[in-house]
C-alpha cells in the first residue's frame, strides 16, 4: 500500500488550477489601510531633507513616516539595515518614507508627492570598485554594527562584510604536482527572483498588544522571532499567518516588508495595513540575487587528476548584507564542485556596493561556484586534450577513496551519493562521450556542454522542524507542519511519507496548507531544499508517536501485548490474526466499551527534528561540517548555433540527480525542470542593467526577460537512488538543484559552438558577436 514513489497529484492542485486558491494578496478586509513607499532616486547619498507636507495634504492620508519614527537595525547576519533609510541612502530604490492611506491610490499619490533632497556621494558599483584602496564606504560604521551570528567577520573601515577562507592541503605541493594549469575569470550579474506573486504583507496590532501578521513568506516563524527581537516585543504576542505562496525562490526567506508594515500599523494606532509590492518594487526595492566576480586557477596532472585549486570570489552583496555572507561562505566551502581536490585555497569576500541588496536565491550561491569551476574544467579539458566527460568522471568525488570536501568532511556513500552513476546515465539522454560539436548544415552547428552539480544546505547548526498528527472521527489523519507550501509540492510529499508509515491511503491524510505560528510547530525556514528531509523526519517521528499510542490502546482492547499488533488500512490488528482488529475511527477519539465506559482519550502524535552534527567553520581553514548530505548530479545542454548571425536555440537540456529516494516522481521532475528553466533564463537573458544614476534600467517585465513558454528546450530528468541514511526513506534535498549547473552547461556548449570563451552570463547573440568580432562592423 506504499504511497512512496507514486505520482500522487498535489493536494492543492485543483484549487490552484481553478484559481480558487487565495494567496495572501487576494485577501482584503474591511477597514484595511494601504501603505506605499517613497523610494530613493539616489544610489548613494546623504538625505538632506524630506518634505512630507504635500503628502499630508492628499485626501485619505493617515500617516507619513520616515526612518527616524522607529529607528531599528535589522539583518539576519549583520544588523546593518534600517527598514526605512536613516540619514543616508545606499541604493537606488531604497525606502525613504512611507505613507499610510485609506486607499492604495491615495497612498501612492501621496508617496509620489514627497520631495527628498540628497547630497550624492560617489557610488560603489561593483565588487572590484568596492575593493579599490580609498573606495567610498557604503557603511562608515561597519565596525559598530551588532552581529546576529558569531561566525561573520566584517572589516571596519572597508566594504568587506565578510571574509571566508578555505585552506586545505599544501598548495605548494599541489602546484608542483601539476603538469597543466589553467585560469579563468568569471562574472555573473545581480538579478531578480521574479516570483509570480510579488511580496506582500498585512499587519495589525490589537489594543492588547497582539500583533497579527499575514505574509507571503517562506519563514512565518522567522517573522515572529525577528519582529520580537527587532521591536522588543513578546514573541507570544506575535501571530503570523501564511497561506500558500505564489513563488518564492529564496526571495521570501528574509523578513523584509514585514518591518515596514509593522511600523506603518504602529503609526496608525495599530489598524490593519497592507503593503504589497508592485513588480517594479519587487525588483528594485526588495532584495535580489547576489552578483559575482571570480578568479579560478586549477591544475592537474598530465592524465587529468586535479591537484590544486585556487578560488577567489568577490560577491556583490549590494547595499546591505542580509544572507550574502552565508552565500559567500557556501561558495567557499563547496567551490570544488563534486570533485576530489587535495589542495584547495579559497578567499571569498562578501562586499558592500551601492547596488540593490541581496538575499537568498534558489541555489544559495552554489550556482556561482558551479559556473566558475565547470567553465574552468572545460578549459582544462582543452588544455589536456581530454574529453570533458572523461575529466569529470575521473575526478568525481566518491566514497571509499579517502576523498574529502573542501571543508575536510569525509565523503561517504550516505552523505554524497553516486555521481559517476549520474554521469553514465546522462550520457544516455544527451550523448556527451562523443563529438560535442557537429556542423549540421551551412551556418548551423549543434554543440553540447555539461556541468556537474552538488549542494548541501547551509542552514543553522540547530535548525529544527516539527510535526503534529491529530485524527478525525472517521479515522483519517490531519497533519500539521510548519513547512510552507511554496510550490514544490512538499506537503503532498509529507502526506505520502505519513501514509506509507501508517500503511494507509494517502487520501486519508489531510495536510494543513496555511501555516499559523500559533498552532503550527516551528519549522526553521522553508529553504535550503531541506523541507522534505527535515519535516519528513519530524513526520516519521510523529507517526511513531501516534502508532505507539494506537498500539497501546489496541493492546487493551484486543488483550494482547502491543508488540503483537500491526497497523494498516486504518486499523490496528493482531499480527497472528488480522481479522482481530479495531478500526481507527473507533479509538482515535477514545475507545468506548459496550457498557459506555471509555478509555484512551484522543490520540495526538508529535514529532520533532533537529539538524545534527553540524559545526560552524573554522575561521582560518574553513574546516567543519556545514550541511548534512549533499545531493549530486549532472546536467547537460544541447544548443543549435547560427554561425552567421550568432543567435542560438536551446534544443535539449537534461539532468540526472541522485536524490536518495524518489518520493513523488512527477513532482520531483517538475521541480527539477523548473530549476532548469530558471537556470537557462539566467544563462541566456536575466541580469540587471544599471543607468548612470545607479538605478536598474530593466526593472519591469517589459525589459527584464525570463524564459517564456515556447522558448524552452526539450527537458529530460532522471534520478538515481543512493539513500542518505539520515533522510526520510533515504531521501535527499532536490528543490533548488535543477538551477545549479544550467548556466555553466549552456556556457560550455556555446563556448564549444562559437569558439570564443564565454565566461559571463547572460549569453546572447550580441555578446558572442562582440567576442568574435571585437564589436566592430
Amino acid at each position, binding site marked *: 500500500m506504499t504511497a512512496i514513489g507514486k505520482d500522487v497529484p498535489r493536494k492543492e492542485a485543483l484549487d490552484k488550477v481553478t484559481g480558487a486558491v487565495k494567496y495572501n494578496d487576494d485577501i482584503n478586509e474591511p477597514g484595511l489601510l494601504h501603505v506605499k513607499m517613497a523610494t530613493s532616486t539616489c544610489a548613494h547619498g546623504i538625505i538632506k531633507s524630506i518634505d512630507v507636507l504635500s503628502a499630508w495634504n492628499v485626501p485619505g492620508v493617515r500617516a507619513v513616516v520616515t526612518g527616524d519614527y522607529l529607528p531599528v537595525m535589522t539583518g539576519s547576519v549583520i544588523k546593518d539595515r534600517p527598514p526605512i533609510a536613516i540619514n543616508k541612502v545606499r541604493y537606488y530604490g531604497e525606502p525613504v518614507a512611507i505613507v499610510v492611506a485609506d486607499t492604495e*491610490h491615495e497612498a501612492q499619490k501621496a508617496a509620489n508627492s514627497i520631495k527628498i533632497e540628497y547630497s550624492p556621494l560617489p557610488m560603489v558599483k561593483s565588487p572590484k570598485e568596492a575593493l579599490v584602496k580609498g573606495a567610498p564606504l557604503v557603511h562608515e560604521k561597519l565596525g559598530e554594527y551588532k552581529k546576529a551570528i558569531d561566525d561573520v567577520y566584517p572589516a571596519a573601515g572597508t566594504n568587506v562584510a565578510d571574509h571566508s577562507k578555505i585552506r586545505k592541503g599544501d598548495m605548494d605541493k599541489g602546484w608542483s604536482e601539476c603538469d597543466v594549469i589553467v585560469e579563468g575569470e568569471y562574472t555573473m550579474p545581480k538579478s531578480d527572483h521574479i516570483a509570480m506573486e510579488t511580496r506582500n504583507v498585512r499587519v495589525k496590532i490589537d489594543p492588547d498588544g497582539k500583533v497579527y501578521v499575514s505574509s507571503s513568506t517562506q519563514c512565518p516563524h522567522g517573522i515572529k522571532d525577528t519582529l520580537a527581537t527587532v521591536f522588543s516585543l513578546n514573541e507570544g504576542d506575535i501571530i503570523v499567518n501564511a497561506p500558500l505562496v505564489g513563488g518564492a525562490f529564496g526571495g521570501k526567506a528574509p523578513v523584509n516588508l514585514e518591518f515596514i508594515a509593522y511600523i506603518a500599523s504602529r503609526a496608525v494606532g495599530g489598524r490593519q495595513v497592507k503593503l504589497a509590492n508592485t513588480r517594479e518594487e519587487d525588483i528594485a526595492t526588495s532584495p535580489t540575487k547576489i552578483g559575482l566576480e571570480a578568479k579560478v586557477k586549477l591544475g592537474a596532472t598530465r592524465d587529468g587528476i586535479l591537484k590544486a585549486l585556487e578560488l577567489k570570489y568577490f560577491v556583490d552583496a549590494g547595499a546591505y548584507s542580509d544572507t550574502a555572507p552565508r552565500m559567500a561562505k557556501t561558495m567557499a566551502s563547496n567551490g570544488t564542485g563534486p570533485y576530489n581536490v587535495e589542495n584547495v585555497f579559497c578567499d571569498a569576500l562578501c562586499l558592500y556596493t551601492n547596488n540593490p541588496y541581496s538575499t537568498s536565491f534558489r541555489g544559495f550561491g552554489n550556482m556561482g561556484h558551479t559556473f566558475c569551476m565547470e567553465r574552468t574544467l572545460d578549459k582544462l579539458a582543452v588544455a589536456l586534450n581530454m574529453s570533458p566527460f572523461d575529466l569529470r568522471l575521473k575526478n568525481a568525488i566518491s566514497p571509499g577513496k579517502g576523498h574529502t570536501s573542501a571543508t575536510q568532511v569525509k565523503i561517504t556513500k550516505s552523505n554524497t551519493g553516486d555521481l559517476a552513476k549520474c554521469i553514465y546515465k546522462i550520457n544516455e539522454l544527451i550523448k556527451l562521450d562523443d563529438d560535442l560539436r557537429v556542423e549540421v548544415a551551412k551556418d548551423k552547428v549543434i554543440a553540447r556542454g555539461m556541468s556537474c552539480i552538488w549542494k548541501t544546505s547551509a542552514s543553522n547548526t540547530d535548525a529544527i522542524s516539527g510535526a503534529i498528527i491529530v485524527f478525525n472521527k472517521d479515522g483519517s489523519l490531519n497533519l500539521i507542519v510548519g513547512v510552507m507550501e511554496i510550490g514544490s509540492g512538499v506537503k503532498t510529499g509529507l502526506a505520502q511519507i505519513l501514509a506509507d508509515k501508517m500503511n494507509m491511503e494517502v487520501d486519508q491524510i489531510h495536510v494543513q496548507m496555511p501555516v499559523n505560528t500559533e498552532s503550527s510547530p516551528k519549522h526553521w525556514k522553508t529553504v535550503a531544499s531541506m523541507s522534505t528531509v527535515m519535516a519528513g523526519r519530524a513526520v516519521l517521528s510523529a507517526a511513531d508517536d501516534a502508532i505507539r499510542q494506537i498500539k497501546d490502546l489496541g493492546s487493551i482492547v484486543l488483550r494482547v501485548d502491543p508488540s503483537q499488533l500491526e497497523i494498516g488500512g486504518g486499523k490496528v490488528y493482531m499480527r497472528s490474526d488480522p481479522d482481530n482488529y479495531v478500526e481507527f475511527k473507533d479509538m482515535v477519539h477514545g475507545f468506548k466499551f459496550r457498557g459506555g465506559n471509555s478509555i484512551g482519550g484522543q490520540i495526538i502524535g508529535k514529532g520533532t527534528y533537529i539538524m545534527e552534527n553540524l559545526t560552524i567553520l573554522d575561521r582560518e581553514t574553513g574546516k567543519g561540517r556545514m550541511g548534512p548530505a549533499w545531493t549530486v548530479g549532472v546536467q547537460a545542454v544541447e544548443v543549435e548555433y547560427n554561425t552567421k548571425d550568432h543567435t542560438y536555440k536551446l534544443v535539449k537540456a537534461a539532468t540526472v540527480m541522485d536524490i536518495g529516494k524518489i518520493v513523488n516522481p512527477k513532482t520531483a521532475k517538475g521541480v527539477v525542470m523548473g530549476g532548469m528553466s530558471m537556470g537557462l533564463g539566467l544563462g541566456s*537573458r536575466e541580469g540587471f542593467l544599471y543607468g548612470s544614476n545607479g538605478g536598474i534600467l530593466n526593472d519591469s517585465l517589459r525589459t527584464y*526577460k525570463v524564459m*517564456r513558454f515556447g522558448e524552452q528546450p526539450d527537458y529530460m530528468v532522471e534520478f538515481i537512488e543512493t539513500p542518505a541514511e539520515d533522510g526520510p526513506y533515504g531521501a535527499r534535498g532536490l528543490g533548488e538543484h535543477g538551477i545549479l549547473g544550467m548556466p555553466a552547461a549552456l556556457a560550455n556548449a556555446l563556448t564549444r559552438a562559437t569558439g570564443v570563451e564565454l565566461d559571463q552570463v547572460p549569453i546572447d*547573440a*550580441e555578446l558572442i*558577436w562582440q567576442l568574435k568580432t571585437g564589436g566592430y562592423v
Partner: protein
Amino acid sequence: MIPFDFDYYKPDTLLEAIDLFQDLSEQGKMPMYYGGGTEIISMARANSIYTGAVIDIKGIPECCEFGFSGSNLVIGSAITLTKIVESGLFPMLGITIGRIADHTIQGKITLGGNLAGTVIYRESVLPLLISESQVVIAGNYGTRQAPISELFDGRMRREPGELIVKLIIDSTYTNLPFFHRKTTKIDKIDYPLVTVVAMKKDDRILAGFSGLCDHPFRSIEMEDSLNEKGLTREVRIKNAMSHIPAPVQEDIHGSGNYRRFVLNNILMDVLKM
C-alpha cells in the same frame, strides 16, 4: 493601480469626440483619446503620464470601419491588432503587427493607438508607409485626408485635439510580395533591435525600419541604394547603410554597432526577394 483620478467619456460620434476634447482641454483636464488603453494604463501606473480625462473612441463608427471599400482597404483606428491579424486582409500588416507585444496585449492594442503612442517602435507604420496609405484625421474643421508620408515623420503629426480616424490602403498593395523580419535581443516577445518590412513593387524594393533609430522610418535614399542595379549586394547594402537618416540606437536591447551588424544581415535577405 493608477495614482490619479480621471474622467471617462465614450462619445458616439466624431463630432462629439472632437468637441469633448476641446471642452476638456479648456477645463485643464489634459484629455487623451483612448483606444485599447494599454499604453495609457501602463504609463499612468508608472506615473509617466497624467490625464484628467480619457475619450474612448471605440464607439465611433468611422473609427471601427474595417474591410474593402471599392479598390481600397479601410481600417479604422479603433480596430485591434488581433482583428487585423485574424482577418488576413493585409498579410504584410498582419504579420508585422502579429509581432507587437504579446497575444493578450494584441487583443487590446488598436491600430490608431500603435501609430499614435509614445513607445518609439510603432511597427504598424512600416507596412502603411511602404504601401503609401492615406490617413483620415478629424479635427474641429471636420475631417481631412493625407498621405501617411506627409503626416508621419517618426510620429504621427497632429494638431492638439486631432484624432486619427482610419487608414486607407490601395488594395493593389495588399497582395504584393513582401518581407518581414523582427530581430530582438533574445526573446521572441520583446521590443525590436531592428524590424525591417519590405515589399517588391514594379521590381523595386520598398523598405521601412523600426528599432534602428529612435523612430520608425522609410528612407527613399536607402531604397535607391538597395535598388541600384549593377552593384553587388554588399555594395548596395553598404551604400544604403550610409543613408540611415538618424543616429543608430544604443540602449539596453543592443549597441549601435550590433544593430548595424543585424541590419546588414537582414538586408542581405531582403535583396534575395
